[in-house]
């Protein structure tokens, strides 16, 4: 019988304690963010959508080889100095934001941005083409690019790492250590879509 009343007492007191805690929270400021109006500041290392700077990219294929889900598509024509890149696309349907492509990129062209909010209505629009539609191909070789006036001198403090063999295959023989350059061309959206950025990108 004593246990019976002890149970009742315990039930009532623990319930009241719990209710005190929840009641206290009424006065606390809510911790949630009102998303589209307030946004969290992403930390430095945040891995958002992958971005490729086409001025630096020399189509060495390492990122495509290293990608665990094969979401990077690189196509090029020709050999040696005459090699031209014809396509660089990333399929964000597949991308898993693992950052393996960025840390092995020897030109530093591929980076993780802080962008995370790209809702679309059709998955096919999540395939991003980074080549400029007005410019059909991009020369891959460094010397060719210098001839075209695309390059400035590389920064000295940055060591030029030799392209390491990617996971299972050696990189293409044509890869040249490409120096850094100011971005002359901006990336472009999925095929056939003119965007305001396009013109600006080419002129830069």
């Amino acid at each position: 019988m004593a246990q019976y009343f002890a149970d009742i007492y315990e039930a009532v007191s623990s319930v009241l304690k719990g209710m005190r805690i929840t009641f206290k929270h009424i006065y606390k400021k809510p911790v949630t963010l009102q998303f589209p109006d307030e946004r969290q500041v992403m930390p430095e290392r945040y891995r958002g959508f992958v971005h490729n700077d086409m001025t630096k990219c020399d189509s060495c294929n390492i990122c495509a080889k290293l990608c665990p889900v094969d979401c990077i598509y690189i196509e090029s024509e020709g050999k040696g100095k005459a090699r031209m890149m014809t396509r660089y696309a990333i399929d964000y349907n597949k991308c898993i934001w693992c950052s393996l492509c960025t840390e092995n990129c020897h030109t530093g062209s591929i980076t993780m941005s802080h962008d995370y909010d790209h809702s679309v209505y059709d998955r096919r629009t999540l395939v991003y083409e980074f080549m400029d539609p007005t410019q059909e191909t991009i020369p891959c070789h460094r010397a060719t690019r210098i001839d075209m006036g695309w390059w400035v001198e590389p920064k000295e403090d940055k060591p030029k790492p030799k392209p390491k063999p990617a996971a299972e295959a050696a990189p293409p023989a044509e890869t040249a250590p490409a120096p850094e350059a100011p971005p002359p061309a901006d990336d472009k959206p999925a095929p056939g879509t003119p965007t305001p950025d396009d013109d600006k990108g080419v002129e830069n």
Partner: protein
Amino acid sequence: MATEDVKATGWADQDHVPEIKSELLELNMGPQHPATHGVLRLLLETDGEIVYKVTPVMGYLHRCAEKIAEGVNYKQWVVYTDRFDYLAPMCCNHAYVTALEKLMGQEVPERGEHLRVVAAELSRIASHLVSLATFGLDMGAFTPLLYMFREREEILNLLERIAGGRMLYNYMVPGGVRYDVPDDKWIKDVLSFVDMMETKKVPEYNTLLSYNKIFIERTANVCVISPEDAFTFGCTGPVLRGSGVSFDCRRDDPYGAYPKFDFEIPVGQGQMGAVGDCWDRYFVRMLEIEQSCRLIRQALETLPDGPYQAIELKKPVKAPMGAVYSRTESAKGELGHYLIGDGGQTAFRNKVRSPSFCNLQVVTKVGVGQMVSDLVALVGSLDIVLGEIDR
């Protein structure tokens, strides 16, 4: 089922056994059910509220990850290990790189080991918070869920600052960790978070949930797992410790920097009922949060200087021929990797022994003779993650 069989299930002494037997009702609990923590399906045979047979059916989340392991190289595979236990991905990373380093014979710098401990323990706290929260939710307490997710959010923010991802970090690499500590402020923030967790939050959860009479009534003396059952069913982690067995891979099969630190292994003591009931399994996790806080504090306060990676990030990783079984203590229990190398950059075979997979099997025995509500408590207290069961 004859009445004698029913009595054997433990309900006999409570006079719950009905005199008139009726047909058993087959009940599909899941794969879309609020209390099965994902896409687990439990095929129940019930008579009224009492369950006579439990048949777990899984595979709804199967990705054949072990086949993928044979197709991608060791470093790429780290990315996939995040996806096993997506509530404690750091622990999964840790388990895999530990196995790989054991096969390779690779040493890891001190600083790397310390950072691994910090990351894995933060992840463990986050996982336990989710576990406790969803267990509370299974018991019908909605508010603790939100409070615990609030703290988990803090952890995710901290881990995001060091690893770059919110949920899938890909932080550990063979031979160390991917990034160093971002700045000193991060260390301060982690320490202050740990302090807050210990002094304020855990007592709050205890008052709100652990010592609530209704919660105790729901969980104490419910679905008791005996140590013998736990051994033969291969239960590990908080499930085993809840049964009163003091076993923890971090102490008994040490790896990484854990032997250097001072921490305790909480075990279930049957405070509210029998040893090994749902409340014990629940409360062991609560105590482990405190121990993880201790570990984090020690690891950060003694964080040595020096390199944090032994292998340069861009270097491919090769492992020799041979087979190892390496195990670590993930948030759910013993997470083991049976890894066979073939001398190249790709695993020949990588079997993942996931703790949830082994822990779940115990419902086929313990779930019998319980009420449907108690089965929910049992599944909740086992803390399963379907990403790890189905792989």
